[in-house]
């Protein structure tokens, strides 16, 4: 099983859009959220005058001490977005723990409003939601151009979320096989291991491999290694099981996944606990593995609620513009990430 699409266009959104057809007008799908960075991609599309429509999704966490502040910040961001696009906006409203049927209904509805060229902003979209939307957009043959975007923050807060639950597959990404040999677990290393240990106790993977974000400035770097140390108390692995990947790159982790899982015909469990671009790589890899008929599942220990200070600001590029990283997922109707059958 090898990767046969070595060139996968990715880079700053502004640059990437210039390289794609100049006539494209994009339908935007993104989260209406409390984070500052959540507005960047849509503002950029409006500024570049290549916005066709926008579908905003307001995702309600479970009630928590953050609820009131999150709502206030989301309302403020809605005003920013309305000013950017020059019209009143409404959002689809769902709950963080809504199931696959609710997501499907929403995606079907959004599907009525979008055309051939789509930008999916995953910056502030929980994995429970963006994995499913990505699946459906990739499967939708109508869509010819699919670009995922991710904006970095200036920095992250100290407390990112509260009260994670147990390991559960992301909607539609559960295993479809059972009764086979021990799985291979690939973990994208993040800041918090949440309840990942439970999965290791329960499923007893044959081996555990890591995608480790590098470079990751301190204190994030320390937290990443603490994450690995914690897992290492439960399972043994060798240094070669840890692959360092650029946290803003989706292509390299995809290639590592292809290589790490090569020859493994039993279930591969993917644990996307790291930066979103690596989660993006895991999503497309899972869909590809599923396509070629190999068992795969993706899960997460979803926290009940995210902090109102999950991140602050939007990172900037060398010109002082927001750093919006864009990744081509489909061009001319063809998938950019694929593995051979």
């Amino acid at each position, binding site marked *: 099983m090898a990767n046969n699409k070595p060139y996968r266009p990715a880079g700053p959104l502004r640059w990437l859009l210039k390289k794609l057809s100049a006539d494209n007008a994009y339908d935007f799908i993104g989260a209406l959220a409390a984070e500052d960075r959540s507005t960047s991609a849509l503002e950029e599309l409006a500024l570049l005058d290549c916005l066709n429509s926008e579908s905003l999704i307001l995702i309600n966490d479970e009630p928590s001490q953050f609820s009131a502040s999150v709502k206030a910040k989301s309302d403020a961001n809605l005003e920013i977005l309305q000013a950017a696009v020059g019209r009143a906006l409404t959002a689809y409203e769902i709950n963080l723990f809504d199931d696959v*049927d609710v997501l499907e209904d929403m995606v079907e509805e959004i599907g009525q409003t979008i055309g051939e060229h789509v930008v999916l902003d995953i910056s502030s979209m929980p994995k429970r939601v963006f994995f499913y939307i990505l699946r459906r957009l990739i499967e939708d043959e109508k869509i010819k151009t699919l670009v995922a975007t991710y904006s970095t923050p200036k920095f992250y807060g100290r407390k990112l979320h509260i009260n994670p*639950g*147990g390991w559960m597959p992301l909607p539609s990404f559960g295993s479809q096989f059972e009764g086979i040999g021990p799985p291979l677990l690939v973990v994208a290393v993040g800041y918090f291991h949440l309840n990942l240990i439970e999965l290791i106790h329960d499923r007893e993977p044959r081996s555990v491999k890591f995608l480790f974000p590098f470079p990751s400035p301190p204190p994030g770097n320390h937290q990443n290694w603490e994450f690995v140390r914690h897992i290492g108390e439960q399972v043994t692995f060798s240094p070669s099981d840890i692959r360092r990947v650029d946290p803003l790159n989706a292509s390299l982790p995809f290639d590592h996944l292809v290589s790490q899982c090569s020859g493994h015909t039993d279930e591969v469990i993917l644990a996307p606990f790291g930066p979103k671009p690596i989660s993006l790589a895991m999503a497309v890899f899972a869909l590809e593995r599923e396509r070629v008929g190999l068992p795969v599942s993706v899960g997460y220990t979803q926290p009940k609620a995210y902090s109102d200070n999950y991140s602050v600001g939007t990172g900037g590029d060398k010109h002082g513009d927001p750093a919006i990283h864009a990744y081509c997922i489909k061009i001319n109707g063809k998938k950019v990430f694929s593995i051979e059958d």
Partner: protein
Amino acid sequence: MKTLRNPFTTLYVTERLDQAKFPELFSPFLVPYIAQLFEAGNVVVEGTQGTGKSMLLALLSTEVRIAFEASNENYPIEPELCRFISAGINLATNEALRSVARWSKNNADSTTEIRQCFVDYVNCWILRDFLDAVDQLTKNTSTLWDKYELGGTRETFIESLPSLSTLPYLKSCANENPSFGEIKDYLSSRIRLYLKFFNGRPKSLPAEFLDSQSQTLGQPISDAVAILKQEGVLNRHTQVLISIDQFEQLLEMEASLPTKPYGALRDVIDQAMHRREPTLNFRVGTRPYAWQETPGEALRDYDKLNLDEMLRRTEHGNRKVFETFATDVFRRRLKSYGYGALAGEKDPIESVLGKYPRPKERVQQIAANANWGKHLSFPEGVSEPVKARLREIAVDSPLDAKLGTAWAGQNGTTAEDLAGLSIDDFPWNQTDKKPWWRKERIWVAILQLAADNRQRIVMNGKKDVIDLSGANILVFSSICQHIWDCWIRSMASSGATEVEPNMPIPWKVQTDGIQRASNTWHEKIGEEKWIGDSLIAFIDEAGHWLRKMMTSDKRMSYPGGNGISLSNRDMIRSPDVRRWLSEAAGRGYLLQRKHKSKDSSRGESIKWYPHPILTPYYELTFHQTKEPRYIKIEQVEEWLSRARIAIQRVDDDSSQLRLPGFQDGKQ
């Protein structure tokens, strides 16, 4: 060079342990207390994390029974109780819980529909497991089948398959005269279709599939058992045991759903037991907080084995059940991992860890070269001459000096009172006049001495390790695992290779291991699903408050102040206080006891102590002496508030996690 292995590397002894190792590591010590597990009737095995529920249920599995036959160990049950076949499901390790993934589908009927999928999925899994067991046992009748006269021949099983395929549940099985493999494949394909359905595709289950869904948990297995008995495959006396482990996962799933349909999944198991199906005997493993108590003892459809109670109780002559159990586990582990000589010792734990440090020795371990006099702290009101005298005493006898500070604070002692007295003559040492005063304050004195010198209290030796385990075998194994890890590291750094000359393990190494184990268990609080961050913040508030109160109580007026007591009457006012104490106790992080206070006006009360393994983390003592600290619910509400947990003084139906005694007024 000999490699030193850690006998406690694998903490859990369950069905997931390498089957060949199970007979060697399984301690049969508890078996005499759990005979009902092997008898007819339903049994609920209840216990907090690490009490050994899964280990006991694993004993029922066919694979483990066969492993015993192949080993030198005897299966620890008398033959007349071995006439059973078991099948089961571990709810944590299969995909049954994913049935809730389609919760909101067809909103109005979602509860019914999801329960139906859950029931049918579990039935399918258990039926396949059961038929697999019969297949396995009849293929090689010399192991268990003939020995326990479980049934007829292999041929009778093969001949019964067409009859089995007439069951409504298996009617879609394509072949009218199926092989066992075809029946198994059919059940597997049914499971796979569910897994796809849980993923959202297909959007709906096919009509013919829905028609064949089983309605109640256990029904298809019961039907199959009836046919197998009728056809002579199973003997009449052969019991069928259905084990369902990790029942608490159902509560976690209910809690994960937006509508919080508490009970929707757990009721399924309850109803199955209520049916009192004569051919099936359920064995349910659960943590205490998840089990829904049947109202009224007489209506119970099951026996309950409470492992926490069982392990904490003492027997004739104060022989502690847990200590004996732990010793057996310890010995087996050592023997299995190549420490045969130590395993053969009369008391292997004591050989490895030593007894325990006496109080004065413990004080020296805390800070051997401390200037005790300089750092000695005093309660208010102690005169300077008395302070000076006690500082002198502290140079050689810091513990006596510390006790003296409290005594002086309580009694207004003067310098003249102490003049010319030897240590044994100090009033706080006169046990004939005040027999309990000193004994009750030894631990708080040691704690305060450590605090005065900015040191941690030191714990090591067999007695400390057993006490810190709090009657929980997983905690015990975890402490041993950390101590052993530290010991292996210290051996490596010193270049030593011989085991016996380096025993008992040095106290510093033990203390380090115990501290690490405590930190690990503290981290576990934060890993509790859906409530971990809130629960750890709450328990931290309580733990730090207790520490502050104990170290600032210079008169040592509350030597039992490492625990709290609330009156039942007071707790009625705050469901949130009840809920969060219940969450902590149900998960084993607080130990809870009913008690009556000296002050009769308080009425019935409940007291709580941090689990002993958490006390090194919070720098507390674990000894439960004298009265706990009496507090009001406002104090607990303050901890909750500081933990950013919303409080309201109204009934809260979402609080499902019960505390025995809160629901029906008795503990």
